[in-house]
């Protein structure tokens, strides 16, 4: 009996060791959920592993949390979408530099019936103002993610205070983009989303895009290698290889080729 237990323990330890041994063949990217949920990494990885000997492990959380995790050195690369926060991250010595990678846009999602009647608006700020004045349901993520920060910036630019989450119409979910979309769909509410998450979202029901193509809605994604001076264990050489590849012609073409139902999800930042 004792021998049996000993064998089991040794077996378990060895399975763990195999996990530890394969440790060095990857880099960890702290990323936003929008990039993962669209299938971006599977698409990129497919091409990337063709001529590289390491792979990419992605931890997808909101931009705010991704930055916090990266500050704690739990990443080799930070890949998010809120430029001011990214620049601050680099300025504070956590990242080496910030490089633009790609962009798409934020879109205003709402119920087909459009209770605030904003479907003919071209300007996001006017639409938000009307939703607010009419007190129609609006879902906010409230999690310091890139999308949430964008939304707060827009409210501020309307020159009004940020709506208070005690107000019945302003629903703060504190959840990721997809979970918030699920809530918006069921609450008959408006919501700001990045385009790729919405296009790949599977539970649209009665909701659709009501406003897009407004310059303030641009959504840029920047990539940052973690500073090895601050995090000695960060795999800077591998991170540089990946970033160089992603912003090369090959990487940028791969980004452009990602589609969902015939719509391109991300647009390369560099033209070749």
């Amino acid at each position, binding site marked *: 009996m004792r021998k049996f237990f000993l064998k089991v323990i040794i077996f*378990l330890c060895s399975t763990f060791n195999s996990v530890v041994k394969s440790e060095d063949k990857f880099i*960890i990217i702290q990323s936003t959920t929008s990039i993962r949920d669209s299938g971006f990494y599977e698409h990129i990885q497919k091409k990337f592993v063709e001529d590289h000997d390491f792979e990419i*492990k992605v931890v997808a959380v909101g931009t705010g949390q991704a930055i916090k995790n990266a500050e704690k050195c*739990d990443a080799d690369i930070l890949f998010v979408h809120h430029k001011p926060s990214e620049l601050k991250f680099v300025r504070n010595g956590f990242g080496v530099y910030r490089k633009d990678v790609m962009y798409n846009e934020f879109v205003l999602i709402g119920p087909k019936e459009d209770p605030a009647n904003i479907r003919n608006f071209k300007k996001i700020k006017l639409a938000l103002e009307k939703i607010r004045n009419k007190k129609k349901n609006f879902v906010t993520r409230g999690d310091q993610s890139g999308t949430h920060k964008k939304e707060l910036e827009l409210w501020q630019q309307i020159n009004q205070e940020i709506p208070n989450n005690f107000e019945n119409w302003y629903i703060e979910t504190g959840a990721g983009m997809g979970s918030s979309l699920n809530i918006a769909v069921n609450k008959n509410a408006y919501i700001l989303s990045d385009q790729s998450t919405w296009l790949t979202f*599977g*539970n649209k029901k009665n909701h659709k895009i009501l406003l897009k193509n407004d310059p303030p809605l641009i959504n840029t994604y920047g990539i940052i290698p973690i500073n090895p001076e601050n995090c000695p*264990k960060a795999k800077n050489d591998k991170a540089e290889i990946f970033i160089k590849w992603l912003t090369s012609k090959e990487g940028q073409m791969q980004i452009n080729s990602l589609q969902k139902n015939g719509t391109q999800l991300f647009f390369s930042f560099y033209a070749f």
Partner: protein
Amino acid sequence: MDYFFQIFSKAINLILEADSDLFEIIFLSLKVSLTALFFSCLIGLPIAALCVIKCFFGRNILIIILNSLMGLPPVLVGLVLYLIFSKSGPLGFFEILYTPTIMTLAQFILIVPIIASMSIQVLEQILNEYEEMLTSIGANKKDIALTILWDARFPLVTCVLAGLGRALSEVGAIIIVGGNIAHHTRVMTTSIALETSKGNLELAVSLGLILIFLSLSINATVSALKKLSKEFSYD
């Protein structure tokens, strides 16, 4: 209501078309939770036996703590483990963050109190029945502990299964410490959370059905074994 049934019929189709990705996820779930369960029993059962047979200092306090830790919030466990094992945390040099190892550790912490607490109840009962007899034949503490653990094996299985149930169904801790990384730390429950957030409700439900089926078959196997071995032991 129609929508609800549609989801279920789609879910069953998905299960029938199961691919290797799905098996990978199921396998990792089982590996993490069963390993956590094994180590929890290794630690939890002796603690329980010790609490029952020995009157050491702080015994009652330990029992109270174990009882209240049964309701430990998984998210808190995940968060604390994350802070400890983060590369800039005190134990960051182990480099086990975002690996199945730390997921096992998280589940271990969550289920040790359950197994220990529930076993204490069971063992106390058995000890009440046996104590006089065992002391009269001059058994020492160690023999008593082993005897009651062995004789309580059938009710103890229930305690262990409760622990396994908690481990298999837990999501809050492992999504933080594991990171839900595709092909590395993605398990059943984190996949369900992910697919729900992507709005793929059919897929999420089908994964849930598989999870239920899994724990159903584990429980069925155990109860069959229980019955079988009981029959043998009465011979």
